[in-house]
Structure formats: structure tokens, C-alpha cells
């Protein structure tokens, strides 16, 4: 119908806005980020000094960097586990045909549209040692272990923040698993009923293998989001107390935008984060795909 040259021209015209924007504002900055990480420079100053691999070599010499790396990895792994566990649990329990199931699903899901900044603030209050629920739990119920300075205690703060992010997003993971559960044929459960299988056996040998695609999606999502964690930490503790809740992104932010001359170091953190996200998502998706093949093979 139309010649090859014409088709190419049309393709180019159709794609022009996407290509121009993505090249200029995505690909160039990715390359720049690696390039800039070999310099010492300030975000508002065009002058740069070449320092070679110094920003990478001195990565751990900045106060809080080692903790930030450790926290990021712990946070991402725990987030991947607990966000998915919470989502799956809600999905299973709200897929049984309960009378109020639709209303309950909506309620659980509604918190996903509350920003993490507001969620963080709301929970900071609930975590407050004088006003928070911990104080009331001790006063009226005698549960003294709940009355802690959750965000002020370096040992607890990171986990207290994780709870907020699970609370906020659990509904989204519930939706992912609800979609997965729809794809499990009902007659499989009926057949296993005849075989006399119990609830746990059914879950283990029918449900789980058949929702592995949802698990893959859920785990990868939560893991990547976990590595990039910023909003909830910055709004609740800003990385404190001390460096107890510092992560790679909060460190990158504070080094680049609040210290002078550290933008190159910030770029090197971005680079490290980029590699971590890429490598871990390749490993995890490879591992989960293997188990997918084992089931569907």
C-alpha cells in the first residue's frame, strides 16, 4: 500500500513527541547522572571539579551512608514480604462472599489515595509518646509495651515507618491478589473438597501455585518501591533520630540539596540505587519466573 520510506516517515512523525521528550529528559539525564558522579559540584553552581572515582570510593566515609544502605535493603525486603502478605490475607478473606465484602474492600482500598506525607503525619501523632495510642493502651488496657517513643527510638523507628507504608498501600496489593484469585478455576476447589482436602492444603497446593503471576508482580512492585522509599521517611523522621532511618534516597536528597558541593556524591548514590534496583529486579523476576515455569511449565 504505502512504500517503506513513507511508512518510516509516518512512524517518525507519530513518535516524534515521545522520542524528543524521552531522549532529552530521560536518556540524557541518565547518562549525565553517571558522568556527574565523577565530579565534585554544587546543584546551583555550573562549575565542576573532576574527582574520578572519589565519590564512589568514599561512599562509606560519609556519616550515615553505611546505615542508609543497610536500612534501604532491610526496608525493601520487609516491605516486599509484609505488603504482599497483608494484601494476600485481605484478598483471601474478602473473596469469600461475605455480605459486607464490597464495602470493606472499598474501605481498605481508600487509604491508597491518601498521600504518604499525610499518612506519615497522622501516624506520627498516633505514635506520639504523650498523646498517641500507646499512652492510652498503657493507661486503660495496661499494655505498657505499646507505650514507646516509636519514632524517637532508633531501634524501632524504621519499623514504625514501615507499618505506615503497609497501612497506606495494603489495599493496592489486595486488588492485585483479588485479580489473581479470579483466575483460579472454582472446580479445582470442588474437586479437592471431594478428596477431603482441608483449607490449608487447598491454599498451599491450589491457590498459591495458581497465583504465582500475582505474587511475581506484587513482590517486584513492593521491592522496587521499597528501594526508592522517600516520602514516608522524610515526612516522619527525615532520616533521624541520628541516622537510624536514613535510606539511600533521603541521603541523596540531603547531600545534594542541603549540603554545598555534594551534588556529585548525590549522583553517585543515585547511580548505586539504580544498579541495586536493576540487579535485584532481574534476580527476583528470574527466580519467580523459574517457579512459574515449574507450575505451568
Amino acid at each position: 500500500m504505502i512504500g517503506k520510506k513513507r511508512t518510516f516517515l509516518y512512524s517518525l512523525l507519530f513518535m516524534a513527541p515521545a522520542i524528543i521528550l524521552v531522549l532529552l529528559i530521560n536518556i540524557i539525564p541518565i547518562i549525565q547522572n553517571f558522568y556527574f558522579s565523577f565530579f565534585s559540584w554544587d546543584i546551583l553552581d555550573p562549575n565542576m571539579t573532576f574527582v574520578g572515582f572519589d565519590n564512589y570510593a568514599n561512599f562509606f566515609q560519609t556519616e550515615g551512608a553505611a546505615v542508609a544502605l543497610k536500612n534501604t535493603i532491610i526496608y525493601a525486603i520487609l516491605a516486599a514480604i509484609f505488603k504482599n502478605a497483608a494484601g494476600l490475607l485481605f484478598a483471601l478473606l474478602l473473596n469469600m462472599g461475605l455480605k459486607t465484602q464490597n464495602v470493606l474492600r472499598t474501605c481498605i482500598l481508600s487509604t491508597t489515595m491518601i498521600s504518604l506525607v499525610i499518612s506519615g503525619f497522622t501516624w506520627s501523632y498516633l505514635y506520639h509518646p504523650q498523646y498517641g495510642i500507646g499512652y492510652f493502651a498503657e493507661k486503660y488496657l495496661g499494655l505498657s509495651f505499646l507505650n514507646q517513643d516509636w519514632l524517637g527510638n532508633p531501634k524501632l523507628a524504621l519499623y514504625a515507618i514501615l507499618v505506615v507504608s503497609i497501612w497506606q498501600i495494603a489495599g493496592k496489593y489486595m486488588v492485585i491478589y483479588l485479580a489473581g484469585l479470579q483466575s483460579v478455576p472454582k472446580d479445582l476447589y470442588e474437586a479437592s473438597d471431594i478428596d477431603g482436602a482441608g483449607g490449608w492444603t487447598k491454599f498451599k497446593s491450589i491457590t498459591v501455585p495458581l497465583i504465582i503471576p500475582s505474587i511475581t508482580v506484587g513482590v517486584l512492585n513492593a521491592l522496587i518501591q521499597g528501594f526508592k522509599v522517600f516520602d514516608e521517611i522524610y515526612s516522619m523522621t527525615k532520616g533521624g533520630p541520628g541516622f537510624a532511618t536514613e535510606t539511600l534516597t533521603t541521603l541523596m536528597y540531603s547531600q545534594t540539596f542541603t549540603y554545598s558541593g555534594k551534588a556529585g556524591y548525590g549522583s553517585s548514590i543515585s547511580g548505586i540505587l539504580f544498579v541495586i534496583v536493576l540487579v535485584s529486579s532481574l534476580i527476583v523476576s528470574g527466580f519467580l519466573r523459574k517457579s512459574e515455569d515449574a507450575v505451568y511449565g
Partner: protein
Amino acid sequence: MSKRSYIKSKKRVRILIEIIMIIITAVHLFPVFNLVCSSLKTSGDLMYHPVGLPHEIDLSNYQVAWETLDYLRTLFNTTFICVVSILLIVLVGAFAAYPIARYNLKFNKVMYYVFLALIMIPGQAILIPLVRMYYRLGLVNTYHGMVIVYIVSAAPFAIFLYTGFIKTIPKSLEESAIIDGCGPFGAFIRIVFPLLKSVTTTVIILNIMSIWNDFLMPMLILQKKEMRTLTPSIFNFFEEFSTSWNYAFAASVLVMLPGILIFLLLQKHFVEGMVAGSVKS
């Protein structure tokens, strides 16, 4: 156990689970409930009764919050940026996807893989050079600057969704339009684009979710007070009123409300969008 009592006990278990789930959901919503209650308390009431219902309803917190936030302006900024960005994401994404899905050229294939690879890239990896570029080009504190960031970060995934969908539409429809004298653009706009409603809904929902509550990017790019969007402005409010919890609560409710309303109005689409969008990784 007789069959009847078996069914009866199963029914009882179900009622028990229902009660437990209602309690869990109530606990889940408690922080929001407490937020709304606290926003209606005076600072004194809040001091003595930090948790639970207000003793008397006091709306003065809202007045302070409304004025300090410059609420209508902030809400307008957020809505405007969100709407324009999403409109352009849809157009840029659908247009770019069309030749990829239809013309079997090597160039198109290569571009498709480039876009796919870009989906994987975390926004933080380009944050610093982007902010530097924005300062140098004078794109800081502008609507179009913010909109461009959103198009660039969302276009690759939109292209991926649209390409997959356009491939399922039979070619014969456009071919007859082209025979009737439509150019490829006419055929796309008149025939194909109207058929993309369901993917477009997904793209819209996904981007409402990521743009409406976005924090870091607008905090860096829109620093002037009159340009601010909701989430960074509530963050600044907390910094400013770190000891006046009652004002901060009222401000939180104001900032949270539009998002919740959007969710309740488009609830069904949210669920579909989240499922379709979760294949991202």
C-alpha cells in the same frame, strides 16, 4: 457430624470471619477517623483529649488552614498540572504506540525496546541532572516544566500498554478508511483512537495515582509558594506549624479530601487500573 450441623457450623465460622473483618477494617480506618475528629478540636481540647470524638465542634482550625495553605490556589495548581499532564500522556503515548503496533520496521522495534527499558528506570536516577537542567533552562517554577517531567516519566509505560492493545484491533478497519481517502493520521484519530477507551482509562487512573500525591519532584521543581501543589504544601505546613497539631490536622483533611473524592467517584476504574498497571515491573 450430620450434614445439617456441618453447614450450620460453616455458617457460624463465616459470620465470625465477617465480624472480625469489620473490626479489622474499623481499625484500618481509625487513623483517618481520628484525623478528622482531631481537626475539629480546639488546641486545648486536643491537649486533654488527644484521641477520640471532639467535645465541641470548632471550625476555626479550618479557617487558619484554608488561608495558610492558600487552598484554592494550591488545589487549582494540582488539578491543572494533573489534568494537562494526563491529557498529554494519553496523546503522546497513543500516537507513539500506533506505528510500533502497525508498521513492522526495525526502527520501530528498537524504539519499543528503548521505551520498555525506560520503564525500569527509577525516577531518582535522573533527579539530580534533571533539577540542574531545569535551573539552567528556567523551567523551575513553571507549569510546563512540571508537566514535562510527568509526561517523560509516564510515557514509556503508556506506550507499552497502548502498543499491546492496538495489536489486538483488526487492521481491516483502518485499511478501509485509508482506501476511502484517510491519511494514516486521520485513520488513527477517527478509527483507532476511539477504540482505545479501556486502556486510556487505565492510563488515566494510574497517572492520577502517581501524580496527584507526588511529593519529591514538585517539592524540588515548584518552590514558589503560588506554584505549589497539595502534597508539598502540606509538608511545608507541617514544618511551619509543627507544634500546632490542630491546624495541621485541619490542613491534612483539606488536602486529603479531593483525592478521596476522586477515588470514590472512579472506584471501579481504580480497581481495573491497578490490576492492569501492576504488570509494570
